[in-house]
Structures are given as structure tokens and as C-alpha cells.
């Protein structure tokens, strides 16, 4: 018996299949998000099944999560991404206490208790500053692929200070910085610092270690360092950072299946 998690995010859909023991990822995959969310999720799900050599009839239960979770009609139920990331990261890093998830258009900080359950959470989902969107805007403005930003940031020796709180105005500020001769590397590093400062503002009081960083933006090198400097704590990138939501969903699908059958 295989169980599936589908994380329908704002920029990418992710699918994870786990085995009946909940100990092995059998297959995983991702695709770009688009307008026809249900169709895209379904297509990705079918592809991942095929790649994993899994028949549809072998699948026990499917849980959807993420921004587009209610559009994924192949799912049996939905669970919020807050719970799913907590379960997914905990599976990979058993002693995690704080999870920072930065996605395409939101960011979250989830605090766990010592037994690994969610204690509380804070979210920013109404402002682009502090989300992957800011990095997209910078990449567009600098004319570089998103994937190059990490390397560029690592070459910076003197990150530019970005004072604007708003991505729209920050973009104008960046044009000004370029015109005044600041390097693109310094600008990207400045943007990373700015995103990290939004997370610190959201975090409020104490952030317990270990701090694990997940979500699509965690894949951009340098962001973990920017967060660590801003939080004044070590920050480690989760294994499989883009997949932890789908992994958590798959693990919860397995739990739901077990509970229904005992």
C-alpha cells in the first residue's frame, strides 16, 4: 500500500509517494503551477505513479495541502501546509523545534513543542516582502535566472541596504542602486538580508533551536546564511526542502488510512 501527498503551491506542485511503513519515499516529482490547478496536479500525480512503478489501485489515501489544496479533487482530504511541513520536516530532522518555510508568495514560522507537535505559528501571506516573490522580482530586474541568485549573493562582500518595506518600492530602489554603481552581487545579498529581516519581524520573541529552513526559497543558496545572521542562530536547510509539505501530507495520509482501518 502506497500513500500520497500533493502540495499544490503558488509556484510549483509537488507530489510524494511513501510506502506503507511510512519510512521510504517511493517516488517524488514536481511541476510548475498554472491556471488549471486540478488538471496539473492530476497529471503530475499520474506521472509520479508511473515513474515509481505504482498502480493507481495500490494507492491507499491521498492528502492535498498548500495554497491550491481545495482544487485537488483526486485528494481524499486536505490538511494545511502548516501541519504538513511540521510533520514532513520532523520526519527528516527529528529534533527540530522551529521551522521556517518560505514559498513563492508566503512565509511561515512554525514552532513545535518537544514532542514534535505544532505549538504555534506565524504567517505572512499578504505582503510580498519576505517571500520568494521578492527574489523573482530581483531576478527579473537584474536579468538573471532565479537559480543564479545564490551564487551571486555568495560573491558579495558588502550587501546593499534595502530600506523599502515594500517589494514594489524596493524594485525602484534597486534601479537606483544599480545606477549608482552598486554591484548586482551586493544587491542580491541585500535582498536576501531584507527577506530575512521580515522573517525576524514575524518571529517575534525567542526562536528555539534547531531551526530548519524549508520551502522553495530554501533551495537558493545564501538564504540560510542570511536567516542565520538575522536570527543570530544557526539555521540549517532541510533535506528535500521543496518536498517537505508533500512529504508531510503523505505521512498524514498514511496515518489517516491506519486510523480508519483499526
Amino acid at each position: 500500500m502506497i500513500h500520497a501527498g500533493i502540495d499544490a503551491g503558488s509556484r510549483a506542485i509537488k507530489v510524494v509517494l511513501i510506502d506503507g511503513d511510512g519510512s521510504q519515499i517511493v517516488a517524488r516529482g514536481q511541476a510548475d503551477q498554472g491556471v488549471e490547478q486540478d488538471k496539473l496536479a492530476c497529471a503530475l500525480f499520474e506521472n509520479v505513479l508511473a515513474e515509481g512503478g505504482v498502480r493507481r489501485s495500490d494507492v491507499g489515501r491521498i492528502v492535498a495541502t498548500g495554497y491550491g489544496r481545495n482544487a485537488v479533487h483526486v485528494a481524499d482530504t486536505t490538511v494545511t501546509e502548516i501541519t504538513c511541513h511540521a510533520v514532513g520536516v520532523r520526519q527528516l530532522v527529528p529534533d527540530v523545534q522551529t521551522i521556517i518555510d518560505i514559498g513563492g508568495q508566503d512565509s511561515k514560522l512554525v514552532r513545535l513543542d518537544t514532542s514534535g507537535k505544532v505549538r504555534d505559528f506565524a504567517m505572512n501571506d499578504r505582503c510580498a516582502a519576505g517571500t520568494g516573490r521578492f527574489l523573482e522580482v530581483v531576478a527579473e530586474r537584474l536579468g538573471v535566472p532565479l537559480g543564479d541568485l545564490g551564487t551571486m549573493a555568495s560573491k558579495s562582500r558588502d550587501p546593499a541596504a534595502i530600506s523599502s518595506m515594500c517589494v514594489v518600492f524596493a524594485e525602484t530602489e534597486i534601479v537606483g542602486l544599480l545606477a549608482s554603481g552598486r554591484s548586482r552581487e551586493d544587491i542580491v545579498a541585500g535582498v536576501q538580508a531584507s527577506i530575512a529581516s521580515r522573517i525576524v519581524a514575524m518571529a517575534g520573541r525567542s526562536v528555539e533551536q534547531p531551526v530548519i529552513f524549508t520551502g522553495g526559497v530554501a533551495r537558493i543558496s545564501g538564504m540560510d546564511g542570511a536567516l542565520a545572521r538575522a536570527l543570530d542562530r544557526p539555521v540549517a536547510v532541510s533535506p528535500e526542502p521543496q518536498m517537505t509539505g508533500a512529504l508531510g501530507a503523505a505521512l498524514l495520509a498514511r496515518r489517516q488510512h491506519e486510523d480508519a482501518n483499526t
Partner: protein
Amino acid sequence: MGKCSDHEDIGISSTDPCHPPESACGSTGAASPPDSPLAWFEGMIPNCLRYAQDAKAGGTRIVGIMCEYTPRELILAADAVPVCLCGGSAETIARAEEHLPANLCPLIKSTYGFHVQGANPFLEMADMVVAETTCDGKKKMYELMGETRTMHVLELPQKPDDPDAMTHWISELRKFRDRLSQAFGVTITDEKIRQAIRTMNRERSLRRQLAELMTSDHPPLTGRQLLQYKSSISGLPADFAQYVRAIEMYASREAACGSNSKVRVLMTGVPMAHGAERVIEIIESHGGLVVCMDNCTGLKPILEDVDETADDPILALAEKYFHLPCSVMTRNDRRMDVLRDLARKYHAQCVIDLIWQACLTYDVESRFVKKLAEKDLGIPYLRIETDYSPSDSARIALRVEALFETVHQRARA
């Protein structure tokens, strides 16, 4: 997925990550039977309007109020009709923002917007409006409103345990009585005040009895339905008769509403004026049951009665009303004590703290409430800051779902 065939589908979301959802009983989609007490209160505005218009036509004075600190008893004792003017509509806010800052509590803006538009018939027929020095936003809004409305301002002292503050409050109530007396040419005797106290105590008692139905493991109604059982005008005999019918009806009904997967929510914070019930509706359509609301549209004003045996009824009024634990009071420890008791009495599994945007006092106080929930009560806490616009309903639903998932996860060993 469990589906009950004659109930509305609440969608595929599950708030228990390990158990799929059951259908909601009393979901907001079902219409109330036309003769039911709930249907009576769903027609509350037209009922009150008819009552007020008839009263006015018969020469009775109408007095608008905008706060639970204002003792309706004194208005009733002046043979006048007390009517609440608090605004719950988003539609009047745009006009209000022509005169008031946008960064202001939506309840204040909405109330003021009705005034500017002349869109609240109760306000239009009011002979006097009572204001109070509670929060900054209200104080200054009242100055604008007072330019064209006959207004009396009650000064509310804000140190709840200070005897001098109480003395001042008593004197403010005496001044209010005198103002009503003078303005309406009536003598407000102690006996008339006592009569009004008895009426209001009866109303508080009836509403309490309904609220206490929610202590049950399987409450016979939803929090949204309970919120319906109130009236803009106090003391209406027809309302009292319906409260009695409702109590009898629910007592005899087999417990229907709490399916075991509903999370019991203690809702606190700001009041939800008529029309501004969006957040409780979101909570109850995403796996929650609001078993208790300690805000001013819930239990806060009805927990304590006025002493009917006191020699001086003004003193008795001053005592009860001064005890209301609004966040304008400093310190507001009484609210924390009340929350502690209510959480226990209503077996709350989590606390949701609603704060209207720009409500500084409830916003700052939310830190104390979070600490109380997490440390003293050991239950999860969620703070929701919003206004009257529905644009963030999906974001609120996400947080509420995540909160309920946390409750369910904790309930697993």
C-alpha cells in the same frame, strides 16, 4: 468521507489531520423554521424598527447608545427606548473615511458612516445619543458626531479597582440621570430605576440561560446561532417571550450539534456588531464550535446582574457596569480571571482572539491572553486581526484550520 445526506457539505477540508470530516449540524446554510425563536431574532432589525417607530409616534423618546458601559436601565427609567447603534456593515465605511482616518477600528468607522449617510433609522429618530470616553477612536469620533446630534458624554474612569474612580463613575451616572430627566421632562425616581433593573436582570438571566446551553458536551445550537439571540433594543416583552421559548425548545431537544470532531472554541476580543459575524462563520464552517464568546456581543455584559436590593440603585448600577472588563481598563485583570473561569466551564480546547484592525487596547492585551491560554490553560491560541472586508477570509480560514489541526494532533496521545 462521511457525509450526512440531509446536511450541507462543508467541503473536503479536514481539521483533524488524522480523521476525515463529518458534516456540520446547524450549518449556516439551513433556513430556520419560520415560527421558531431563531427566526424571530433573525427578524430582529425589522422587529425593533417597528417597535421604535410605534413608540416614537406615541411620543416616547428614543436614546441611542454605543457601548455596554452605558446603563440602559437609566434610559428605561426615563421612559425612553434604549437602542444600540453599533455598526456592523462594511458598506458605510467608505463615507466614514472621508472624515476619519482609514487606519481606525471598522466598528467605529461603520457606526460613524451610518451617521454621515443618515442610513441608520434608529439614529435618525433618536432624541439623544449617549457617548462614553472609552477608547481613543470612539472619543474623537464622538466629537465629530456630536456636531450634529444631541449627545451626552459619560466619562468612564479606567482604573477598575480605585475607589476614587468608582466615586467619579457614580457621579457621572447621577449626571446622566439628571440630563435625561431634564431633556425629557421626566422624573426618574429610584423606584423607576429599580423597575428597570429588574427588567434588565431578567433579560441578562434569559440570555445567560441560553449561553449556558453551550457548556454541554453536545450543545443544541451553534455559536453563530447563539449570537443571533440578542436585540438592539433592550427589554422588549416579545423578545423575552421568545428567549423563554428558545430555552424550552433547546432543553427538550436531543443534543444534536457537537459531533466529536468539532473543536470547542473560546472566542474572545472585540464585539461582533450585527452584520459583522464573518469570522465566527468562518470558524464554524471550518471545524470549530464557538461554545463561548466573552466579548461585548457575547457574555461580557450579561455575566453579572445589578443588585436589586441596594438602597441606592445608582450605586448598584455603577458597581455592575464598572466591572465590565473591556480592554480600555487598566489593568484589565478581571478579563483574565473571567477567561480562566469560562475556559474551564465551557471546556474550551483553544482560544481565538479577534481584534479589529487599529484596536490598540485589545491588540496589546492579546499578549496577556496568549500567555493565559498557553501557560495557564495549556491550550493553543490564535490571534485574528481583521476588518469588515471579506478579502482575507481564505487567509483566516487557513489559520483556523491549522489551529484546529493542532488541537486534534495534541489530542492524539
